[in-house]
């Protein structure tokens, strides 16, 4: 950090430039220190994943001989892959269905608006405000009675409905930005609604649809209220699997870290890529 500051130290001749450079150096140090402090727990977790269990609980140090034994143990002992597969199935499944249901809806709202469209959008947003804990009891009982407890199907249903308002909302904002003339031209050439959507709308708004899908995947992947309450072993995704490390405190830090690193790495990377769309989706377009 300090070398960064001194490296940019300016010549003594221009006083104004010098103070500007000094200010820049201070801000660089400050900005990086804050970023590193915030990121530290993640960094430490990744590091601990490469330690042995003994090294994991020893005094903090950056010098140790890295090992992959925790990664192997996590798979061998608890079958990490099974939970990862559940997470993938649930996140992709729910995103697929949410897009399938939301695309026609957003299409209608963007291209065939009626005077009720705005009200419908706002009502959809308001369903997102219903706290999940408020409906825990009925959902649990319904799931128990129809045999959906601890099934991937059950979680896919919940996550599809949970993300549907955000997905509709985001797609609507992307579709609305598309010039209407193109669709109109397609229609002139005799395209049916389905052809219009499949061959014109979808290819043209693919980046928007992709980022909507990514947001939905991230939200489903990280969801931990329903996964903890509605699954136990069979359909448990990674959020619930990681929670199982909470009981034997202090014994399996390296394994916890290895499992956690694998669980968050893909989403962290997706998150970095979709920051901007994330803001758009999470604030329902209220912050641009």
């Amino acid at each position, binding site marked *: 950090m300090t070398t960064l500051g001194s490296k940019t130290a300016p010549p003594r001749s221009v006083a104004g430039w010098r103070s500007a450079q000094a200010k820049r150096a201070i*801000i660089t140090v400050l*900005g*990086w220190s*804050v*970023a590193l402090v*915030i*990121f530290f727990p*993640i960094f*430490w977790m990744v590091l601990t994943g490469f330690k042995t269990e003994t090294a994991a609980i020893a*005094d903090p140090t950056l010098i140790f001989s890295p090992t992959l034994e925790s990664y192997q143990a996590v798979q061998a002992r608890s079958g990490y892959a099974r939970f990862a597969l559940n997470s993938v199935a649930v996140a992709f499944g729910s995103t697929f269905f949410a897009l399938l*249901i939301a695309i*026609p*809806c957003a*299409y*209608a709202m963007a291209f*065939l*608006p009626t005077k009720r469209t*705005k009200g*419908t959008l*706002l009502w*959809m947003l*308001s369903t997102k*405000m*219903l*706290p999940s*804990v*408020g*409906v*825990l*009891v*009925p959902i*649990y009982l319904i799931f128990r009675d129809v045999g959906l407890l601890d099934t991937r199907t059950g979680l896919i249903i919940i996550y599809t*409905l949970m993300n*549907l308002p955000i997905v509709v909302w985001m797609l609507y904002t992307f579709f609305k930005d598309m010039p209407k003339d193109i669709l109109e031209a397609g*229609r*002139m050439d005799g395209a049916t*609604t389905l052809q219009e959507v499949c061959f014109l709308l979808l290819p043209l708004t693919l980046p928007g649809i992709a980022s909507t899908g990514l947001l939905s995947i991230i939200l489903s992947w*990280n969801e*931990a*209220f329903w996964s*903890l309450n509605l699954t136990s072993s069979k359909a448990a995704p990674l*959020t619930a699997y990681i*929670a199982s*490390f*909470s009981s034997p*405190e*202090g014994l399996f*830090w390296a394994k*916890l*870290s290895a499992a*956690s690193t694998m*669980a*968050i790495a893909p989403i962290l990377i997706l*998150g*970095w890529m979709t920051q901007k769309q994330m*803001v758009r989706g999470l604030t329902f*377009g*209220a*912050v*641009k």
Partner: protein
Amino acid sequence: MTKTRASGRTVGGLRTLSLQAPAVTLLLLWMIVPLGMTIWFSFQYYNLLMPDMAGFAGVENYEYLLTDPALWRAMGNTLLLVGSVLAITVIGGTLLAVLFQQDFSGRGIARVLAISPFFVMPTVSALVWKNMMMHPSNGVLAWLFESVGLPALDWFSALPLTSIVIIVAWQWLPFALLILLTAMQSLDEDQVEAARMDGAGPIAIFFFITLPHLRRAISVVVMIEMIFLLTIFAEIFVTTSGGPGLATTNLAYLIYIRALLDFDVGTASAGGVIAIILANIVAIFLVRMVAKNLAD
């Protein structure tokens, strides 16, 4: 939108309606059915352990719940948790947004590092903090405290709610930063420059230009965080299980205890109704604000 198209197809309510029908129907069911059941159960005697006792309970569940000191403790904890996390994330997020808006070497990477915790699943953040950071003998914080001569702290027994606040704030500070940084980018540089020409210092610029510009984004952050923070669950579930005693039991966790540990569906549902009412008070303001934005 014209009434008929070149293709001769009529346009209007019917097609719009049929395209929207699946999404609207599903969301309507998703909202009405569980909500209706929660309200219905909240007026019933319904305990899974006592199947004989059933029937209309009137307001008895509410009476039982509202006279239970656990509820008020949980409400207090919920408010403390939401209030503290909001204060930390909004004030911290604003300051960090100003910092990360400045031009410095490697700013892009520093920003990415700083917003990362928001993408970490709640069970992972809670367990990493509980074990590797806050563990009384082997945690990094204990090591830090000892190396400056302070006694190590047993975070979860000495300061249980504070520990939860720290974990949750760590997750949501990046959210506030992300939103406020986005809002900051639409700040008019000319206006800032003009103020600087007129002799305004950085503090004056912050209070008279930056902060008013961020007002709307800040209120969005406050409302969205409130809706999520009112029902924080996983972080408590994997760290303290609501304890010691009721020290970290919030409304969401209390409902969980009543429903899935005590099997008292009636009381849990009454708690659910209270949670819904609380969330709706916030939601009304948020929806209104988004509606205003939609009109522009």
